[in-house]
């Protein structure tokens, strides 16, 4: 049987550009790995790539508009450190970056025209880096005679999807930190306010890891779908596990080996940075897997406790990572009471300390008022009952016989020779009577409630009877 090895047109095309099949598969493997997509393999990526616009004989690369909002361009800088594929490959081979203030070669009218043409043509991805500023009627970041906020809404409205890149784009980030003078918010919040329903993929981080953006692009370009998003609109594969889950210092945490101070032997040994305020256990991102700067290292590996820069709730610009995590080296954030900043520990210890002091003072009061030994004498009648005799809760005028019968019924005392209960109340010298013993409860003596003399006499009689027994 004749078998013929067929080299596809696609590979010939690659070959003509100096890309071997091996190089291509390596790229596909890297893309699959970088995306962190466990269920697809390099072969899947290769197939998708062959079928995509890149492999097609006709058609264009996927258009992307990458716009800077209130940003430091740090996310772009971070993107420039991507390893495989390198930034040039992404920008030139995988997408058609039609507009980017930082990476674009163009400027001025023609550059803005390119953006307008891309928007008019539709079917593009919009990457927005930085916060949206609401103050000054949205006039901040005014470019090409268009207010900053309109740039966002206008470009997002027709996009297939918006990628909010970096924590500032997700919910304002440090731009939105107190007192948030520019009214910074995230892209999702801004679009919601303007009734624009374009799906938003939130990729937080300060800066965002380039591989996270790449993962989103891989899904969009090759699989023609948005990644699976969690409740915060973040790719769930990247932002479900915590830093702590994948931390290389985790072993030291489990062993109880901690760095308590910088510059110590423990720090040199690479111990866990938890006591130095590391936010790893509460920060969701896979930094420990993707790492940074050509996958060389990342914050915790290089000795810096995680400061929780991916903490960003797109629905709440107050829940930004700076507000949530400062001071970074403390285990708790500070709470703001007016213009004061207080640590939760200070608040809790102050309240508890005040309470303890109050109890000590109260204890002296109890001592002085002689309540330490059994408390004060009981009130004879409830005050309310005294005022409302017709609706009285308690029955205070029981005869001795009735009392004795009730006690017997309750099993706390045998029927006793009645003591003038009312007499005792009148004279204050109710006499104690001996009673029989019942069950296991021993000798019982009945006496008048408030007739302390009677009670004392009863005690005396009781003690005497015991002395006799002894």
């Amino acid at each position, binding site marked *: 049987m004749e078998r013929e090895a067929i080299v596809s047109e696609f590979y010939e095309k690659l070959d003509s550009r100096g890309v071997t099949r091996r190089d291509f598969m390596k790229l596909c493997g890297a893309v699959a790995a970088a995306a962190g997509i466990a269920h697809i393999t390099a072969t899947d990526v290769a197939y998708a790539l062959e079928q995509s616009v890149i492999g097609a004989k006709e058609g264009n690369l996927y258009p992307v508009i990458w716009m800077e909002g209130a940003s430091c361009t740090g996310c772009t800088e971070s993107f420039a450190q991507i390893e495989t594929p390198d930034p040039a490959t992404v920008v030139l081979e995988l997408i058609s970056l039609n507009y980017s203030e930082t990476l674009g070669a163009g400027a001025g009218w023609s550059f803005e025209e390119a953006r307008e043409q891309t928007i008019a043509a539709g079917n593009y991805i919009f990457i927005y880096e930085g916060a949206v500023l609401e103050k000054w009627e949205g006039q901040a970041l005014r470019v090409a005679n268009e207010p900053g906020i309109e740039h966002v809404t206008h470009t997002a409205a027709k996009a297939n999807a918006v990628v909010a890149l970096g924590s500032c784009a997700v919910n304002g980030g440090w731009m939105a930190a107190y007192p948030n003078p520019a009214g910074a918010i995230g892209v999702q919040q801004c679009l919601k306010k303007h009734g624009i329903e374009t799906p938003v993929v939130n990729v937080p981080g300060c800066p965002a890891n380039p591989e996270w953006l790449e993962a989103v692009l891989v899904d969009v370009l090759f699989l023609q779908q948005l990644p699976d998003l969690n409740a915060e609109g973040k790719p769930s594969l990247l932002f479900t596990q915590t830093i702590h889950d994948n931390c290389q210092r985790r072993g030291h945490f489990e062993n109880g080996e901690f760095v308590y101070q910088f510059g110590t032997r423990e720090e040199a040994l690479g111990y866990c940075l938890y006591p130095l305020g590391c936010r790893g256990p509460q920060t969701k991102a896979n930094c420990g897997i993707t790492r940074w700067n050509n996958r060389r290292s990342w914050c915790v590996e290089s000795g810096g406790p995680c400061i929780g820069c991916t903490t960003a709730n797109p629905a709440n610009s107050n829940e930004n990572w700076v507000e949530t995590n400062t001071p970074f080296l403390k285990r708790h954030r500070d709470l703001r009471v007016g213009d004061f900043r207080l640590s*939760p520990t200070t608040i809790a210890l102050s309240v508890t300390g005040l309470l303890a002091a109050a109890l000590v003072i109260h204890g002296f009061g109890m001592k002085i008022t002689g309540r330490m030994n059994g408390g004060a004498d009981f009130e004879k009648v409830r005050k309310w009952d005294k005022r409302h005799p017709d609706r009285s809760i308690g029955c205070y005028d029981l005869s001795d016989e009735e009392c004795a019968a009730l006690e017997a019924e309750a099993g706390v005392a045998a029927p006793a020779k009645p003591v003038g209960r009312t007499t005792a109340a009148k004279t204050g010298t109710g006499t104690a009577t001996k009673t029989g013993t019942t069950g296991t409860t021993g000798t019982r003596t009945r006496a008048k409630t408030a007739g302390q003399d009677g009670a004392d006499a009863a005690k005396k009689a009781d003690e005497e009877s015991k002395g006799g027994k002894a």
Partner: protein
Amino acid sequence: MAHLAHYREAHPLPFVITHWINLVAMILLIISGFNIHFPFWAAFEGIARGIHMFFAFVLVLNCIVRVILSFFVKSAPTGGTRRTDTDIKSWLPQTDNRHQAGAWVKYYLFLKKDHPLSAKLGVPQKLSYLLIPPLILIMAYTGLCLWGPTMNAPPFAAGLNLVGGAMMMRIIHYFLMYVFICFMFIHVYLANVEGTAPTKLMFFRREHGGLVYDPDKHAIIGEDELDEKH
């Protein structure tokens, strides 16, 4: 002797046991919790986490068991009596408590000289005890919002979103611990300031004589001096 007689019927054995479990679990949870918050004793950290999770579940289960038992086990509704009634009735407001809230507050502020008549639990005491089971459940919920294996489950993720993230949840969990600490301070103080008899009864089932109270007549009807004196 002004207090009511302390009888075992006030605290039946099942409740003595649940009280012991509460005490041990809460103390271990507080100590391990402090260590988890900041590992002041490094070698204890791993064990502390195990203890914390284990006793959290113990405390919650114990709380549920205690509440369910209160519908079945009978206990004395007031001090100074051996008569018993379904325990839950002594958790909820009783006739003996009516109109007495002000009297209790005044008594503890030294504005009232004589001791208010009461049910087994006075009004402020009753309110604080009623708060404890929901507090334990809220505490457990905030804890599960922070625990790795459960933090992403929808009921806990919703809670995190509600309070403003894991850091705020941690602070709430931390403050709630101080609520328990403050409760314990007040509880231990008030239980012992007028004598240790209530504690001896609660922990060791030792009875103590005192005034006899009738839960139907809502009044003191006599005095019972047990042989055993403390």
